[in-house]
């Protein structure tokens, strides 16, 4: 199992090599190194999977300790891996999708002069992400946790000369770091409770150290979840993710859709033993997940920017995952994570292909009717969109239905209802996006003067937006093949989670690891299962039909100006943050700066001035007149005499 260390080490080596030497050698070599290392990581992951499969289900867990990393007093944190079904599954998803996106990037970034830096960052991200999923304890995991955040920052701000990109990077870093405060405090609390943060040890000791529903368990679970809301862009810390679309599109696909943002879900599943001791915290997770799902779906409705639609969609889908794990459906959460990785990456790559063709344009109001000119892209997007909307037989259908039925069967009917409504909205916004980009004629939806545009690097097409008569074509094969592969996975991915007899492949693979949650899993019948699935499917279809009626047939005009405004401002959440958090903090900082000068330093300088002033006064007393001096001495004489007489 020690070979598992190679999984993150390969991309790490790619980072070092490309980072140090990338500018010296050709772009081709850079691309080979970058893709090669990730493919190698994928290959090693497969090998480790094979090794695990060879073991009996109960023995498929191995801790690999590299060396003692931090060890002093009572705090011990080795640098170690935990190789078990969960981590290997995630490693496979991450390295697999990552490899595809790396290959896609070769084509997408072909025109960018900083390709070495790009791939170096991307490799570093792969290393961090793989380390995150493989790490054997919370502290080691935190390396990956922060590492992916760093890479996210670096890649969002990849085109750093553009102020919005630079600002979005900082925003992403800061907001996630705010969540990481919770994560860190969680680690501290874990040390206080367990004396260790080793996952296996904590899982073993959770039952004895954490009283069910006790404050320690609840606090620990909620603190870690705070970290997850930051990293996985949940309410209330989701605000960085839409802005993160300033980065190159493959980055959005890889980091801000398929992998990094799901780290929170993974972490909760990893820590499920703790969460099981904290039902209240699990409820919070489920409620936040459901609320985020519907909120973000609604926010996506009025978004004119294609990538931001997908970003809100990601937030919403992550909400589903949290809803799933919140009701104790650990493996279904991972299932949705996986299928979402496939279809959302596919959607982003397709969107990237559109932008690639349009010179970086991302404003859907400047697009339209592209289905004919970009058939392959349109097809790929359609597959992804259908999966997202939850249409049978795409992967998204199975995974989303699994979570919905889990919620229902867990007795969280309200959450189920909310999630169902969110499913409808999902179908609505993604169908709208598809219609605007591929179906409707250009110019629909009145483009504003300031469009959205990605990057400033030269693209394959030298123009921006949809210029009539311009050469608009599907991307080159190096980009098309990864899209095809992902489309295939999207088609087949459902098989992972669904089979005639639940639990599915994934659930059985993870099963020995995951203690059953509050889920009354066996109580559901096939009949109710089918009914729930039908309800979900119906809502999805209804959404698509609604879009068809509103946008294509123009049969309906349900436009309330108020709703439109609220949606366009994403429920004013960001304005609220700007006014209630950012502005006050900025004001406090300014004020503190002034306070520092005026009061604290003022006191010091004032004291110095007073002393200097005393010197000036004394100077004036030295009048130069001899008789004054004699008088002064006489005063002294009298004072001394007085002292001696009346002491």
């Amino acid at each position, binding site marked *: 199992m020690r070979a598992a260390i190679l999984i993150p080490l390969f991309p790490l080596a790619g980072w070092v090599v490309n980072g140090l030497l990338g500018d010296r050698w050709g772009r081709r070599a850079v691309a080979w190194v970058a893709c090669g290392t990730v493919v190698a990581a994928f290959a090693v992951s497969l090998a480790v999977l094979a090794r695990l499969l060879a073991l009996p289900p109960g023995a498929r867990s191995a801790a690999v300790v590299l060396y003692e990393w931090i060890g002093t007093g009572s705090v011990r944190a080795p640098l170690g891996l935990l190789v078990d079904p969960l981590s290997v599954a995630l490693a496979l998803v991450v390295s697999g999708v990552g490899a595809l996106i790396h290959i896609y990037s070769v084509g997408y970034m072909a025109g960018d002069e900083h390709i070495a830096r790009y791939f170096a960052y991307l490799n570093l991200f792969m290393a961090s992400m793989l380390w995150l999923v493989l790490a054997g304890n919370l502290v080691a995991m935190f390396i990956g946790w922060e590492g992916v955040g760093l890479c996210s920052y670096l890649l969002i701000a990849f085109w750093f000369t553009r102020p919005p990109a630079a600002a979005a990077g900082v925003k992403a870093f800061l907001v996630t770091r705010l969540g990481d405060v919770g994560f860190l405090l969680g680690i501290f609390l874990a040390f206080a409770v367990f004396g260790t943060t080793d996952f296996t040890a904590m899982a073993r000791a959770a039952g004895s150290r954490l009283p069910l529903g006790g404050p320690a368990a609840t606090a620990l679970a909620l603190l870690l979840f705070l970290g997850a809301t930051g990293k996985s862009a949940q309410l209330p810390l989701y605000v960085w993710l839409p802005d993160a679309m300033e980065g190159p599109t493959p980055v959005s696909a890889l980091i801000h859709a398929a992998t990094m943002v799901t780290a929170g879900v993974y972490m909760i599943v990893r820590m499920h033993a703790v969460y099981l001791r904290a039902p209240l915290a699990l409820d919070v997770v489920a409620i936040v997940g459901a609320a985020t799902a519907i909120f973000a779906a609604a926010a996506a409705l009025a978004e004119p920017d294609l990538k931001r639609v997908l970003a809100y969609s990601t937030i919403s889908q992550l909400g589903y995952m949290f809803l799933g794990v919140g009701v104790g459906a650990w493996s279904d959460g991972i299932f949705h994570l996986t299928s979402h990785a496939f279809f959302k990456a596919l959607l982003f790559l397709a969107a990237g292909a559109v932008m690639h063709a349009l010179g970086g344009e991302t404003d859907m109001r400047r697009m339209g009717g592209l289905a004919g000119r970009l058939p392959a892209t349109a097809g790929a997007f359609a597959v992804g969109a259908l999966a997202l909307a939850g249409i049978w037989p795409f992967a998204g259908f199975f995974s989303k239905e699994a979570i919905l039925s889990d919620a229902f069967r867990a007795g969280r009917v309200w959450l189920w209802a909310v999630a169902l409504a969110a499913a409808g909205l999902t179908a609505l916004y993604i169908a709208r996006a598809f219609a605007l980009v591929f179906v409707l004629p250009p110019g629909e939806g009145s483009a504003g003067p300031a469009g959205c545009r990605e990057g400033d690097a030269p693209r394959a097409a030298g123009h921006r937006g949809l210029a009539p008569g311009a050469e608009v074509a599907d991307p080159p094969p190096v980009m098309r093949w990864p899209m095809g592969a992902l489309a295939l996975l999207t088609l087949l991915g459902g098989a992972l989670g669904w089979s005639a007899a639940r639990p599915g492949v994934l659930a059985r693979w993870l099963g020995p690891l995951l203690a059953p949650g509050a889920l009354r899993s066996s109580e559901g019948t096939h009949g109710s299962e089918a009914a729930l699935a039908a309800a979900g499917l119906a809502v999805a279809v209804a959404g698509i039909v609604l879009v068809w009626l509103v946008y294509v047939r123009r049969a309906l005009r349900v436009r309330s100006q108020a709703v439109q405004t609220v949606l366009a401002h994403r429920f004013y959440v960001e304005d609220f943050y700007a006014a209630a958090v950012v502005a006050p903090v900025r004001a406090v900082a300014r004020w503190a700066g002034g306070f520092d000068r005026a009061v604290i330093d003022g006191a010091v300088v004032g004291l110095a001035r007073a002393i200097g002033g005393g010197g000036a006064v004394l*100077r*004036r007393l*030295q*009048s*130069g*007149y*001899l*008789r004054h001096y*004699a008088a002064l001495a*006489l005063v002294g004489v009298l004072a001394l005499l007085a002292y001696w007489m009346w002491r």
Partner: protein
Amino acid sequence: MSVPAPYYLGLSAVLFTLGMAGVLVRRSALIVFMSVELMLNAVNLTLVTFARLRGAVDGQVLVFFVLVVAAVEVVIGLAIIVDIFRSRDTVDVDDVDLLRG
């Protein structure tokens, strides 16, 4: 001697105070000087009184030292005052105020 010792002591204290006042209020360097001499001689009177009171001679010896010292003071002082008079045409101590601050 019919005059009791405290009278001498009182007289010398008065003389000393007069000298002191002279230093403080007179402007001519020469008169200031004379005032200092007055103070010294007041002290001499005290010394002699005490010596007689104690019936010891060492107080009277000290008087001679004081006299010598006073003479030396005058010598140095007059030399300086002459120098000052040469360069400033005045011996008013209030005009000697170049140095201050």
